[in-house]
């Protein structure tokens, strides 16, 4: 499995906010993708958009609720079409299955189209250790493969890189003349990878959807690399998380409407490819073998928890990343594993264990923008709150890590906030203690113990001389709510 460094979340965010190139890259992405997403929704009208979201939600609820049934149907139909389905309980099994298929077929070169599951599995390293050349072919994935990095966004893996960084990377790694011209960089990738497509023995793809009724794997791409990976090599291996299945071909329509619009604001992507088994004897081309690897790797834990189950409805559009004030400041790498942003803060603890990722549910202001943007209406803030609760209090065999001090503080806070008398006393005491240190009514960076942990990244306003209740009583209560009196 891909290395998990989610424990370093807090220090990683501190480094990320100081990275000016990263901030530049994030600013561009946030406004770009989300702006076109909003335009696309406006175009179809918000009412129609809501109908689509509800329809998609119903399909996911039903399928995930009967996942065993639909996986069985899928397996039956992939097999009937001449393909083979493999089931992997964890990353180790999934990697071993793909490695074995490669060995059985004497594979030396692999071309890959984008697959987040393969990132999760850390598959490339396993194949490379076997002496196989693996080439990522999605431009963004190709860039981060050359840079030996991991994706920082669900749909735009190299989003954290500026054109200068890519130009330098191409010059260093490919020995081409340094050029900041984006068209030229794309042309270089085309030329380098074109030959690999024709040489490759095996193509690996992810899956956006798996259609149970027909046994089809559906991928949605813009570059055409997915088409080449699934058409040119002798063997095609599709990798999918077990939650990707939908019952009928008819169900695909609504997802094809929702996914591109949510991801990049595109009305439809350039390509949608539907693969049903290997080539038929009469076909001109296509792989001789088709394998589908269905991966659990912790997903059944999310499935078993009714509070977290809906995280499996995610279609990986990345809309929640593009609207998240936290992701927009720290970028994807700070999250420490493959799935960043609001949905990643639920999926990652689910898949790698909350013990390793207990800071992630705190990486949210709970503003709800992610829930509003989600094309399948996943209530992300609710689940983040739930995970915070579990992180502190524990659940089942998981021991909460909330300290006694924290618990005491929380109880004290609750007591103060539910008693006007105590709140008022607190305000007066706070003002008396902190006012001498403040500048223009706020406490900036300070070395005061405890308080400094707050002021390290934010200003602390000093409690005002009079409470709102006092102002109301003395001045406002008799003068109507629209009074302009100070």
């Amino acid at each position, binding site marked *: 499995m891909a290395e998990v460094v989610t424990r370093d979340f807090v220090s990683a965010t501190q480094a990320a906010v100081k990275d000016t190139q990263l901030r530049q890259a994030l600013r561009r992405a946030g406004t770009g993708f989300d702006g076109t997403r909003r335009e696309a929704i406006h175009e179809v009208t918000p009412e129609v958009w809501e109908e689509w979201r509800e329809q998609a939600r119903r399909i996911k609820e039903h399928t995930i609720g*009967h996942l065993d049934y639909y996986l069985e149907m899928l397996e039956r139909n992939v097999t009937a*079409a001449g393909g083979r389905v493999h*089931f992997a309980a964890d990353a180790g099994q999934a990697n071993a299955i793909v490695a074995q298929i490669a060995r059985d077929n004497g594979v030396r070169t692999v071309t890959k189209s984008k697959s987040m599951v393969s990132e999760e599995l850390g598959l490339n390293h396993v194949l490379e250790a076997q002496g196989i050349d693996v080439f990522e072919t999605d431009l963004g994935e190709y860039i981060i493969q050359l840079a030996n990095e991991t994706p920082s966004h669900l749909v735009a893996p190299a989003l954290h890189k500026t054109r200068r960084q890519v130009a330098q990377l191409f010059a260093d790694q490919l020995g081409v003349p340094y050029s900041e011209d984006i068209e030229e960089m794309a042309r270089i990738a085309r030329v380098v990878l074109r030959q690999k497509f024709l040489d490759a023995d095996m193509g690996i793809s992810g899956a956006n959807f798996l259609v149970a009724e027909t046994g089809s794997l559906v991928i949605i791409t813009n570059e055409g690399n997915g088409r080449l990976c699934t058409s040119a090599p002798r063997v095609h291996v599709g990798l999918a998380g077990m939650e990707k299945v939908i*019952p009928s071909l*008819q169900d695909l329509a609504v997802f094809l409407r929702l996914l591109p619009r949510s991801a990049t604001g595109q009305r439809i992507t350039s390509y949608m*490819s539907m693969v049903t088994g290997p080539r038929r004897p009469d076909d001109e081309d296509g792989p001789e073998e088709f394998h589908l690897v269905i991966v659990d790797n912790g997903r059944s834990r999310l499935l078993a928890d009714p509070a977290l189950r809906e995280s499996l409805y995610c279609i990986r559009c990345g809309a929640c990343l593009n609207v998240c004030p936290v992701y927009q400041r720290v970028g994807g790498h700070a999250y420490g594993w493959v799935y960043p942003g609001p949905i990643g803060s639920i999926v990652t603890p689910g898949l790698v264990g909350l013990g390793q990722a207990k800071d992630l549910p705190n990486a949210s202001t709970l503003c709800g923008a992610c829930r509003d943007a989600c094309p399948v209406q996943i209530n992300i803030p609710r689940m983040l709150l739930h995970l915070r609760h579990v992180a502190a209090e524990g659940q089942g065999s998981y021991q909460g890590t909330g300290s006694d001090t924290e618990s005491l503080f929380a109880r004290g806070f609750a007591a103060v906030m539910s008693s006007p008398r105590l709140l008022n006393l607190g305000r007066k005491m706070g003002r008396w203690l902190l006012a001498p240190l403040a500048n223009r009514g706020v406490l900036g960076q300070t070395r005061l113990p405890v308080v400094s942990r707050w002021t390290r990244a934010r200003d602390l306003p000093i409690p005002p001389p009079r409470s709102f209740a006092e102002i109301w009583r003395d001045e406002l209560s008799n003068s109507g709510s629209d009074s302009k009196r100070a």
Partner: protein
Amino acid sequence: MGIPSAQFRETIRAALGRQSGPPAEPYDVLAEEFPALEARAEAVRERAARETPELLDRMAETAALRGWNVQRCDGAEEALDYVTSLARSLGATSVARSEQEVFETVPVDAAVAGAGGLCWPAVYDGPSSRTEVRQRLAESDMGITGADYAIAETGSVVVLPRRGLSRLVSVVPPVHLAIVRPSDLLGTLDDLFALRRLEHVRNGGDMGSYLNFITGPSRTADIEQTIVVGVHGPREVHMVLLDKE
């Protein structure tokens, strides 16, 4: 290596706390019987035939928005003129095409020859010629295909690779030209899937190995969200939209 599917499903059932078996409430779409499916597909066909003029207009408009160079043609003659002028402007010497019915009414070989190029069918005679065909495809200037369907809602051309129709003709050459007949047109994605489902059932659970849904040129925005066309697929796509068969 992996685990047996039954064991995999058992884990899922345990997680869901459910017994094996189909959903208690049958899923509407899947419960549809063959006659109902056939009736729905027939209705889709009828509507498309009735609304052809509107669909042509909608197709032309949407496809242009999605990046196709759309050329509406009154008949085969106009279409062939367009093919010749396109081949000439590209300076095309080698043009690959599929073997499809549409080329009987729109014989593009002569049109390409008129521009001084050679149009050849990208079909494999046997395994030995596979590498050769691929190499030729990689060096060709344009690929021409028909359309098995064309979807007005999205401005897309659908091709179903099979005998005579390589998966690679519409993706490897730098320019793709699709010839769309009025009878290929459908209104929506739902229409397309209704017809494919019928095909699936009719063929005893098989509907071919591949479906390509093509909308505009190949593109990427992976560097600084700047859109570049023609990454791994065609940088330029043309649609000849025939107003009548």
